[in-house]
């Protein structure tokens, strides 16, 4: 058997493959994206980018009901979208092993919140496994399929960003070929009619209690006997930090945090003088221990917000740390749109317009920051259009600012379409801009239904965004090229003057997807008057130098947007 450096995401993919998983579905989302990207490189597993996380989980559940081992993977907020089928799946159970991977994002590296999805286990009544490194990510995922089948229940594997995107050595195993059980009609199990579901709920409580009894003796949880106080209870990557800070302490390291191994925890608490719970974000383990009557130190000392690290644990628990303050006054380097980013062109066209803009989720969310300041809200996937609709209903004619929704192409397919239908059917005066960069940009260029390719690199029928919008009942649909900045601005102004609903599709491939080979642009300092019009494109290649604009030849990709907007024709 060989050792390989794998990220937590890659390790989950390996574990699923080794477990004989045959069907896997996901929607891209940081930090979970690489799970399916990696799994798609193995043979004998069908992998797809589903249109959203609800779809992905239903696809996996369908495969499970059909007797095959299946997995759905998503970022933490994706499980909110997929919560509906998750709860039904718990009642129905898992004929073929069914594993749901959620990758949480403590610290909000690339998300709108830092919700703690361990609570989904408690609420949906399903087991939750929390690996602490890549080796466990592989092993736990593999074992999750066995647990799922043995106890007829879906199993959640919960990662966090730090685990998903850390690489560590993993001992690889071989694939166990699982015979498909085939489909069998079982309406009392698979139809959640109230009469059947009442019975299934009672059964679910029995199933989760059987898992609890099993978990009391499971090797997913480990006691490490140390020589010093306190006794530490932890899960996930927090265990690695805690070992670093308390090398000699006793540990109860939990691998399955729900259903909770009550007896094991009580025995551990009896064996130590003081119990400290070290866990990221919410006090999930702490609540379980408290309900058993165990007094603990936990979130009274440790932070409930943000990502943990060894330094924060030291500071919270009074352990000495290296004294090293960051340098003051280092200019921030916030993420920004790339050179040649087509979103910049459509943002420029929106500048100085009297608009209220509902934003959405993608690279273009960065357009809320200067110099574009192009959006007012970011709520969740698809909420640009529905926000604008609600806002329009509330403001009516009392506010002259036009209600605009700004959404990306992949997000439009994910959950924009239902909102668009709603603006038509319930009649609001909303202008929807679909900024179509022909890929899922933020997460690293995954194909989507508009691209004509699948995750497994097969050709597919590309779905036309314009046709979808027309089929939704929007009569006014126009397409613009955001690199033609002035023309785009003219069209935007024209559409803003009309009655909605209307759609503007702003289409240009992501500048990182199709590298331009156009010549880099230069500023003629004789002609430049330093008006900063080009600066307002927010292009990282352009900066002011001695009151004239200057273009960095190593950053410029030659898109020509700056030349298009320059009022003095100083850029060529």
């Amino acid at each position: 058997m060989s050792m390989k450096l794998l990220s937590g995401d890659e390790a989950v993919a390996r574990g699923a493959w080794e477990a004989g998983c045959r069907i896997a579905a996901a929607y891209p989302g940081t930090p979970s994206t690489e799970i399916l990207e990696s799994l798609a490189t193995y043979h004998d597993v069908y992998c797809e980018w589903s249109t959203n996380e609800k779809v992905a989980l239903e696809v996996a559940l369908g495969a499970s009901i059909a007797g095959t081992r299946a997995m759905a993977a998503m970022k933490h907020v994706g499980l909110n979208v997929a919560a509906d089928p998750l709860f039904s799946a718990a009642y129905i159970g898992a004929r073929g092993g069914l594993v749901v991977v959620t990758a949480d994002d403590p610290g909000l590296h690339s998300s709108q919140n830092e919700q703690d999805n361990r609570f989904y286990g408690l609420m949906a009544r399903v087991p939750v496994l929390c690996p602490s490194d890549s080796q466990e990510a592989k092993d736990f995922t593999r074992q999750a399929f066995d647990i799922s089948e043995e106890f007829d229940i879906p199993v959640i594997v919960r990662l966090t960003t730090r685990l998903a995107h850390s690489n560590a050595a993993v001992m690889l195993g071989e694939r166990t070929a699982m015979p498909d059980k085939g489909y069998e009609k079982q309406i009392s199990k698979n139809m959640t009619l109230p009469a059947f579901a009442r019975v299934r709920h009672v059964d679910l409580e029995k199933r989760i209690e059987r898992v609890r009894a099993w978990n009391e003796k499971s090797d997913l949880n480990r006691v490490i006997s140390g020589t010093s106080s306190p006794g530490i209870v932890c899960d996930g990557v927090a265990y690695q930090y805690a070992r670093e800070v308390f090398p000699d302490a006793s540990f109860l390291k939990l691998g399955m945090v729900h259903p909770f191994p009550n007896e094991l925890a009580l025995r551990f608490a009896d064996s130590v003088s003081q119990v400290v719970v070290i866990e990221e974000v919410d006090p999930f383990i702490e609540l379980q221990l408290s309900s058993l009557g165990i007094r603990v130190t936990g979130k009274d000392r440790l932070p409930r917000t943000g990502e943990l690290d060894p330094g924060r644990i030291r500071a919270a628990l009074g352990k000495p740390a290296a004294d090293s303050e960051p340098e003051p006054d280092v200019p921030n380097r916030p993420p920004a749109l790339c050179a040649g980013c087509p979103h910049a062109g459509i943002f420029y066209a929106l500048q100085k317009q009297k608009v209220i803009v509902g934003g959405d989720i993608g690279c273009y969310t960065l357009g809320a920051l200067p110099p574009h300041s192009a959006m007012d809200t970011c709520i969740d996937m698809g909420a640009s259009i529905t926000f604008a609709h609600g806002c329009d209903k509330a403001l009516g004619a009392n506010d002259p600012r036009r209600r605009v929704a700004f959404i990306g192409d992949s997000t439009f397919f994910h959950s924009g379409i239902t909102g668009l239908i709603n603006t038509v059917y319930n009649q609001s005066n909303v202008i929807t801009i679909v900024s179509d960069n022909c890929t899922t940009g933020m997460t690293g260029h995954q194909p989507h239904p508009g691209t004509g390719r699948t995750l497994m690199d097969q050709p597919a029928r590309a779905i036309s965004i314009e046709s979808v919008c027309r089929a939704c009942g929007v009569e006014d649909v126009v397409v613009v090229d955001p690199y033609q900045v002035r023309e785009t601005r003219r069209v935007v102004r024209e559409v803003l003057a009309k009655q909605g609903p209307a759609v503007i599709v702003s289409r240009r491939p992501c500048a990182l997807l199709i590298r331009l080979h156009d010549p880099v642009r230069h500023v003629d300092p004789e002609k430049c008057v330093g008006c900063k019009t080009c600066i307002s494109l927010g292009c990282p290649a352009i900066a002011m130098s001695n009151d004239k604009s200057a273009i960095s030849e190593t950053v410029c990709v030659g898109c020509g947007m700056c030349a298009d907007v320059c009022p003095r024709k100083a850029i060529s």
Partner: protein
Amino acid sequence: MNVLVCGVGGQGVLLFSDLVAGVALESGLDVKKSEVHGMAQRGGSVTSHIRYAPKVYSPLIEEGTADLLVAFEKLEALRYVHFLAPGGRLIYDPLRIEPLPVRLGLVERPDDATLDQRLAARAARRMDVPAFEIARELGSTRAQNVVILGAVAGFLDLPVDAFRSAIRTSLKPGLVELNLKAFESGQAAAACR
């Protein structure tokens, strides 16, 4: 060994750290490497934490404990210099990439002399390597990361030759020759310092 690598999204920090972590694993050590993808990569500040030893727990390096800080850009060197352990070494590219707030004129641009003074005050053992310029002379600024790797290779407590084979096996065949040259140039630049 704790190696913190920092730079700007798009500079190739991740490939650099993949190569170092791979060589450390081949040398029979336990390795952890941690970085963040997604929104942070869009021209933002990027770090990669690499730790290798007989046994490694935390994937993150604590402030004040890095043996080596490798910076692909000067402001980023200053941003993370507090991660260096007392006596730790800083190796940086004096390249400047101005952050958006500076380009927009919202924040004043710190001048080079001040940055040099502040770095000197925090890192007694330091070396600047003009890797970006060297890579440009070799014909591709994208090889900046491998030039820096060449400059750093002698300070990693890992077999230097293993990096040459890692470059051969990890990169696309068409890029191997250029990157081997970049690696040698980085080594030569470090030797002159």
